[in-house]
């Protein structure tokens, strides 16, 4: 039971990082992406390869994961941000569908459908993280850093310029902000965070395969952000806790066969997302109405 709770808490910390990463795009940048699982996956594969071949040091692997995901995101951002908002959604949707094929097909790097197995136990500053407590502490540490970094950046000049573009692009551009550059930076930052999440995930599960990086996963991450509340610091945190507790809560309800829990869960957050958009578009923790 304790082991289960520790594992769940670690996963919540990892997914909170992922939700925070998407929130930088969606909430602060006003850029809608449905491909966050791709960057999560790139980070996870890169870190897994590092852990298997170079070093199991979590910090190094997380930075490599972040660099890989950030670099890929530039390839998506540069063409797609040139045009209107809708185009980024569509390009990211296309990337998500294409990426699954690539993940399956690039066997030397990703292990194909079978995935990468036997990822060694991670270490941090020379200490082994074999103990679940230590791994949880490390992941929470990364989450705190991610949240602190997000807060500092979003309170500062970068975040304010970004939000001004989100709220009124022409006005911000007239005041000398460069929307293209700022939005690209937001995408790279957000996707690099997702890469960190991927690195932690591969170290925690010690196994990565394409199943974790599909459209469904992107949807899940998006649900966390939207349900919690976009553009707030606490929103993604609340969202990831609620959504990861949902399958456990559902397993207590009699009458749902265990094989159907995935579908029931998806249906619930689909429904919650739609209802929130109709009645409370700012999400659960929104303290003021969404201003746009």
């Amino acid at each position, binding site marked *: 039971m304790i082991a289960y709770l520790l594992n769940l808490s670690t996963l919540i910390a990892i997914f909170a990082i992922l939700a925070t990463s998407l929130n930088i795009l969606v909430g602060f940048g006003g850029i809608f992406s449905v491909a966050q699982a791709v960057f999560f996956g790139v980070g996870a594969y890169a870190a897994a390869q590092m852990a298997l071949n170079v070093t199991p040091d979590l910090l190094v692997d997380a930075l490599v994961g972040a660099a890989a995901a950030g670099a890929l995101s530039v390839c998506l951002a540069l063409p797609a941000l040139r045009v209107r908002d809708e185009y980024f959604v569509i390009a990211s949707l296309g990337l998500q569908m294409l990426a699954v*094929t690539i993940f399956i097909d690039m066997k030397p790097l990703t292990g194909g459908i079978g995935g990468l197995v036997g990822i060694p136990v991670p270490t941090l500053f020379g200490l082994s993280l074999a103990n679940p407590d230590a791994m949880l502490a490390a992941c929470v540490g990364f989450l705190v850093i991610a949240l602190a970094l997000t807060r500092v950046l979003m309170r500062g000049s970068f975040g304010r310029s970004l939000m001004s573009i989100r709220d009124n692009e022409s006005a911000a551009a007239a005041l000398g902000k460069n929307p293209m550059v700022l939005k690209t930076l937001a995408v790279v930052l957000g996707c690099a965070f997702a890469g960190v999440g991927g690195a932690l995930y591969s170290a925690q599960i010690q196994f990565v395969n394409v199943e974790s990086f599909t459209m469904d996963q992107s949807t899940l991450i998006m649900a966390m952000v939207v349900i919690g509340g976009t553009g707030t610091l606490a929103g993604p945190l609340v969202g990831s806790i609620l959504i990861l507790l949902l399958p456990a809560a559902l397993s207590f309800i009699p009458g749902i066969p265990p094989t159907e829990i995935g579908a029931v869960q998806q249906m619930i957050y689909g429904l919650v997302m*739609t209802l929130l958009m109709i009645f409370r578009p700012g999400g659960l923790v929104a303290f003021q109405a969404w201003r746009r």
Partner: protein
Amino acid sequence: MLLVQLIVSGLQTGLLYAVTAAGFAMIFGATRIFHVAHGAVFALAGYVFLSAYTAGFGWTGGALAATVIAVAFGAGMERFVYRPIQRHEASFFTVFVASFGVSIIIQSLIEMIFGRGFVTLTTPLAQARPMFGGIYIAPMFWIVLVVTLVVFAVLWAFLRFTRTGIGLRALSESPELLRAYGLSAQRLSALVFAIGSVLCVPAAILKMAITGMQPSVNSHVMLISLASTIVGGVGSITGAALGGLLLGIAENVSITLLDSQWSEAASFIVLFAFILLRPRGLFGYAVTR
């Protein structure tokens, strides 16, 4: 010869994409609502048709049931999701998430009832027969060709000649002016959602009969509809139809160059090429910053 064969099957796929994408483009053009749940209508129509067909209602009964569901779903989305949202605000984000949420609900509902795997309808019409010069064509190809051409002809005539059709075109130009002339923009929006959704029905039925469907067809159709709209040019129904046709052919012809699991990648490459080189699409207006 292989190339001709692939172009034939690409034409078949592309025509189905074309009607589906035309439905999305029509809704988007007239109401500016980014209706990503269009893929869900497609899946819904296909599965409802299959259920009615296997329950013994035949092709007509199945098609009728699918049409009723599509109209109800499209008009219901407009009435119960988009209209309440537009009453308080209508940012792209809110509409997109609400629509996406609905498509998740539909997809998981279908997964629960029919399972995640492929379902299909076996019909002798989908069996390929040798034609001239070693080309294999199933009778289904001719059915697809005739059905889609008839659908487009009816749609064109409707938009061109009827009062309602002209009203719909006016809606995309200027809702304010429409109101000044005493027409109800609300009623026309509901209508355009109904018609746009019905356009999914023939394509969904034919796809069910040709290759079968799985619940994730939802996101595939979503991507195809959106991509065709961009390739064709935002706001142009003809453009979206040609875009769909192009994507279908690209998907099939790409098999000569790449393995078959990459056929989906072909549509992505076409989409990306258009975003890079001609973001306004075939018939659209300028959108670059």
